């Protein structure tokens, strides 16, 4: 069957499934809209959390980043999984015991002040909107490729789909659809990986294939990849460190801490029946996430290998590279989106793909082969979507990947939009501005907030300040520097008072935001940055991606200083903290 027909069929079928579930379990009351009914089993909750969590950044973008970054891509892998350890050990059980609906609810009660709630809401909105920008970029890429549109129209279609999808159902719909989405996305990710691993190494499990020898050779896959990369002027894959040790450390930490501070993930742990299950849910979520995350390194490495092999069929640069005329269909397809470009600098009609930033190598290549610079630009975000095509896999696999990418982006966007809508309608409107509004008005306000967020994120996502995974990494930095320290001190440090927590959150959030805007532009608008975003200009060489870790330190230091100078925490709050530390007596989550 034609690829295009196949894509319509499989993507269409997956959508029918999600919409079906959403309609079947349509949210009726407000409490269902936010947290679904109680009693979601830990394994089911773990699976839904995994779908919620694994976004366009994980599915579409991450392996592509790893493909180009080699070893240092591990920052994303460790960062986005290690956070679950923090979540399971430091936050989830206590927040469940506390038993309210939202993160601002907890902050407001623990720090006994509405102003604390407002600061938490601001942090939450900044985090979620940054995060959605990354999702929308991913959504636009998927739709533009598979509907053969340019990126702008891909975004328009993506926004329309996200809109009709999220404004329709609430959390209840989302919990069940997310389980369906998890199944779709994990199949879509692992099936092509298994095929490619079998092709290259003969191993079914890509996790083993990546560390095994290549079919018909006694050379290890990674060794071979190191070699072909060095041949075209890059650093060895297995030791390539794009970030430098300091930034890799800071980025990994920011992603881990940020994971544990992400409102749309935390809110998941309010929905399990008891404290014991809250702990276990985080473990199950990580199991389901790890299936994708341990596959991703193989997807990235093997896609890179196949890409180079396509351009340099002889595996040595001494031989002729691929003729542009002979380029495979997948390259032609991606050229329409503008995300893969060819510029025949030396006008020989052949594609040269190499590291022209490596001066020594570039000079050698020019002298010996007449190469005038790298001629092929491949957007990192297309690597995962293109990898089955690069490997010549059957059409249904390619179509499946499209459905998976859409599922990943949709499920996360839906979870985030829900958090945005609940923070505006529930926390801000009903909690502070107009406590007496009816449930109906509350729901309406939530839907308006969602729509506005989609429009804003779509607009910003057209000119993203980086690849999807990088934009999302910024959201984590913001979560790490604002919410996580306040939540953690709220549980582990009884003496922390409202003044300290509020000052800390504000200091951490705004320091991190300022640092990001200085290098990446105010509100990410291109051209509004004060300094170029590169290591020569960074403060102490710290990348904006990893600055969240510094922001978190600023948060804690400011909080402690302010706490010392202000009134101690009242006794009844300290008692409340004592109470949430003990599992027994966790009732159902209650509304106000």
């Amino acid at each position, binding site marked *: 069957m034609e690829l295009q027909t196949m894509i319509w069929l499989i993507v269409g079928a997956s959508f029918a499934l999600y919409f079906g579930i959403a309609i079947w379990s349509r949210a009726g009351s407000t409490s269902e809209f936010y947290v679904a009914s109680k009693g979601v089993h830990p394994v089911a909750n773990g699976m839904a959390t995994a779908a919620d969590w694994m976004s366009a950044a994980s599915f579409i973008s991450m392996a592509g980043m*790893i493909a180009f970054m080699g*070893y240092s*891509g*591990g*920052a994303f*892998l*460790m960062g986005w*999984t*290690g956070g*679950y*350890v*923090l979540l*399971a*050990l*430091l936050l989830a*059980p206590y927040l469940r015991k506390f038993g309210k609906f939202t993160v601002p609810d907890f902050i407001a009660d623990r720090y006994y002040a509405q102003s604390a709630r407002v600061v938490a809401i601001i942090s939450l909105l900044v985090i979620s909107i940054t995060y959605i920008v990354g999702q929308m970029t991913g959504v636009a890429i998927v739709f533009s490729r598979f509907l053969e549109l340019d990126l702008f129209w891909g975004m328009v279609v993506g926004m329309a789909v996200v809109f009709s999808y999220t404004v329709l159902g609430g959390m209840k719909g989302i919990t069940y659809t997310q389980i369906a989405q998890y199944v779709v996305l994990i199949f879509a990710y692992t099936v092509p990986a298994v095929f490619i691993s079998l092709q290259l190494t003969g191993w079914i499990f890509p*996790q*083993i294939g*990546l*560390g*095994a*020898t290549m079919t018909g050779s006694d050379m*290890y*896959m*990674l*060794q071979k990849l190191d070699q072909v990369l060095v041949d075209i002027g890059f650093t060895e894959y*297995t*030791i390539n460190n794009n970030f430098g*040790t300091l930034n*890799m*450390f800071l980025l*990994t*930490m920011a992603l*881990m801490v940020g994971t544990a501070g992400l409102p749309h993930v935390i809110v998941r742990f309010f929905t399990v029946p*008891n*404290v*014991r299950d809250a*702990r*276990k849910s*985080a*473990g199950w979520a*990580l*199991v389901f996430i*790890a299936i994708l*995350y*341990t596959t991703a*390194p193989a997807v990235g490495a093997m896609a890179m290998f196949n890409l180079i092999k396509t351009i340099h069929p002889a595996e040595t640069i001494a031989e002729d590279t691929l003729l542009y005329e002979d380029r495979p269909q997948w390259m032609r397809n991606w050229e329409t989106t503008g995300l893969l470009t060819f510029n025949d600098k030396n006008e020989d009609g052949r594609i040269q793909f190499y590291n022209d930033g490596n001066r020594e190598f570039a000079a050698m290549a020019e002298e010996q082969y007449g190469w005038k610079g790298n001629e092929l630009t491949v957007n990192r975000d297309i690597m995962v979507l293109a990898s089955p095509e690069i490997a010549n896999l059957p059409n249904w696999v390619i179509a499946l990947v499209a459905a998976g990418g859409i599922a990943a982006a949709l499920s996360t966007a839906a979870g985030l939009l829900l958090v945005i809508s609940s923070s505006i309608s529930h926390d801000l409107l009903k909690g502070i501005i107009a406590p007496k509004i009816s449930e109906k008005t509350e729901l309406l306000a939530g839907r308006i907030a969602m729509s506005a967020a989609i429009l804003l994120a779509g607009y910003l996502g057209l000119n993203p300040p980086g690849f999807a995974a990088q934009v999302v990494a910024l959201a984590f930095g913001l979560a790490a520097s604002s919410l996580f320290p306040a939540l953690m001190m709220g549980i*582990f440090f009884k003496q922390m008072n409202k003044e300290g927590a509020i000052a800390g959150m504000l200091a951490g959030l705004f320091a991190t935001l300022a640092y990001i805007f200085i290098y990446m532009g105010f509100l990410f608008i291109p051209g509004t940055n004060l300094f170029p975003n590169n290591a020569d200009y960074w403060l102490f060489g710290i990348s904006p991606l990893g600055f969240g870790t510094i922001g978190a330190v600023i948060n804690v230091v400011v909080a402690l200083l302010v706490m010392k100078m202000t009134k101690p925490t009242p*006794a009844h709050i300290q*008692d409340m903290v*004592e109470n949430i*530390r*003990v*599992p*027994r*007596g*966790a009732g159902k989550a209650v509304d106000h």
Partner: protein
Amino acid sequence: MQPTGSAAEYWKANVRLLVGCLIVWFVVSFGFGILLADVLNHIHLGGYPLGFWFAQQGSIYAFIALIFFYVWKMNKIDKQFDVHED
């Protein structure tokens, strides 16, 4: 109200377990995967240099094991101090 003796001890046991788990968490990822990666890369696990393996595979497996170990241990502590749920 100050916590009673057993509540304080429960919390202490919990924090002790947490600290132990977090040390392992730090060592497998930041230790083996980042700070010591260059040294560990001299050792190979099949085709994987060991530091690379920890950064891209091993730390993730360790995280899963850690969480389930913590859940199991914590349930025991809950029972021991009689604060477990029904």
